[in-house]
């Protein structure tokens, strides 16, 4: 009966091998794309449309040490964190309440469901009227992008909790406050963290759009600037950078996810 634990390690090892193979494949595909880009750029011969690969890579690598670029990147990251933080606070509270109470759910869900149909960019004019140009509308837009995935996934996190966990806790004498603390909060955590991942992701995607329009600083603004100055190689480099940073944030949240809900994983480790 007990030796079940040991058998777990076999697939883990197998997974490692698979993961390494997968990684090599990824590298190969990436390399292939670079080579294709290199030759395609030469063949097309229009650097304004598709810049030289080597030049773009140079732009990309130097950008990480360029003070101005990094300062704007920092500004943008700060906006994402601020907006996501507001989204996190409001989204998780609303999600918990709506997941826990059917009354709150039927009261609020039509409202939430119609609000979230409004495209993020449609908030731009109104948010400029509300907050003026600058930080306000940008952070508001990130908030709007982040809050709905958080609400929806936190609700799912709560409603996915096995009803018998509540019954079990009550049969051991738990009161409502204890049930909320010991069952609802930890039980909703996986859903909440999924929501957080999606929220930061969509916050990152919308911040750049917001910066095109509502402010004269930040990463999105640098992109518009590069476009206006016809520095296409730089624009490409910035786009790759935004992909890398977005990916990095996603990986970071996944890491936190594994840490905080290690109980979901058989090896119990991050």
């Amino acid at each position: 009966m007990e030796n079940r634990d040991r058998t777990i390690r076999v697939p883990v090892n197998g997974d490692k091998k698979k993961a390494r193979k997968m990684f090599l494949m990824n590298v190969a595909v990436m390399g292939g794309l670079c080579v294709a880009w290199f030759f395609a750029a030469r063949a097309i011969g229009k650097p304004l449309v598709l810049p030289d690969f080597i030049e773009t890579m140079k732009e990309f690598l130097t950008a990480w040490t360029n003070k101005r670029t990094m300062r704007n990147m920092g500004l943008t990251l700060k906006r994402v964190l601020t907006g996501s933080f507001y989204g996190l606070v409001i989204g998780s509270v609303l999600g918990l309440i709506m997941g826990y109470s059917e009354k709150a759910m039927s009261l609020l869900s039509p409202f939430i469901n119609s609000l979230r149909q409004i495209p993020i960019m449609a908030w731009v004019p109104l948010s400029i009227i509300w907050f003026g140009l600058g930080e306000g509308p940008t952070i508001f837009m990130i908030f709007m992008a982040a809050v709905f995935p958080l609400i929806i996934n936190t609700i799912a996190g709560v409603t996915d909790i096995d009803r018998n966990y509540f019954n079990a806790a009550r049969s051991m004498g738990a009161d409502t406050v204890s049930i909320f603390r010991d069952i609802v909060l930890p039980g909703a955590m996986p859903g909440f963290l999924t929501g957080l991942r999606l929220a930061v992701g969509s916050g990152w995607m919308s911040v750049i759009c917001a910066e095109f329009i509502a402010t004269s600083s930040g990463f999105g603004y640098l992109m518009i600037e590069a476009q206006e100055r016809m520095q296409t190689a730089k624009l490409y480099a910035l786009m790759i950078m935004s992909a890398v940073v977005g990916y990095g944030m996603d990986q970071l949240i996944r890491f936190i996810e594994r840490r905080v809900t290690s109980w979901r994983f058989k090896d119990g480790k991050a």
Partner: protein
Amino acid sequence: MARLSIEHVSKVFSDRPGEVQVVLNDVSFDIEDGEFVCLLGPSGCGKTTLLTMMGGFQEPTEGQICLDGEPISGPSPERGYVFQNYALFPWMTVEKNVAYGLKFQDLPEAEKKARVDAAIEMAHLTEHRKKFPIQLSGGMQQRCAVARALVGRPKVLLLDEPLGAVDFQMRELMQNELERMVQEAGITVVMVTHDVSESVFFSDRVIVFGRKEGEIVGNVTIDLPRTRDRSSEEYEHYVSHLTNLLRDAFKGASIK
């Protein structure tokens, strides 16, 4: 006075408007102190529904269930419950799961700790106490769930097909473990099962349900010494007797 008395209990579900389902109709029986009683019946006959009402998770539509003469009105630590899927809290270690069974009882911390240790010991989980449920085998999860239900020293233990999801080879092994734990605790037990042999192995008395409305088609006392020998002739005899009762119930010819 009986420890647990089921008095004219009916349960009707009417989730959808215009549609009523009578799951139990006027069911009555008593369970004595220290008895191990199995509720045996085909699946869908209302065994879980009846057990959850004993647990206090839902209320009878009519009638009542009394523990030591007091009507049951909700869940309470007086009645330990082991769910069909165990319902161990996946975010708590073995130790924390078991300790949760005592968390809301008014006891000195040292006493709580000693009792939790003893329960974990009884479940043979001492070396696994820091593990999460996902890291346990099915057998360990089941023992953990039983330990959690027993640690608060309830008056009755309610078990809903605790071995329902276990494959055939493991089943007997786990039956032996459960038998040991329950006998050590010396407690009144009500266990739901649809497995005839399992009911003979555990029960002092088997209450057999038919297909419809919780109709009781048999009430069989198993008079065999413990731990029971599954290959003995008497054991076989009880098994076939109960099997026949169930089969007749299926044909609709109930035996009173």
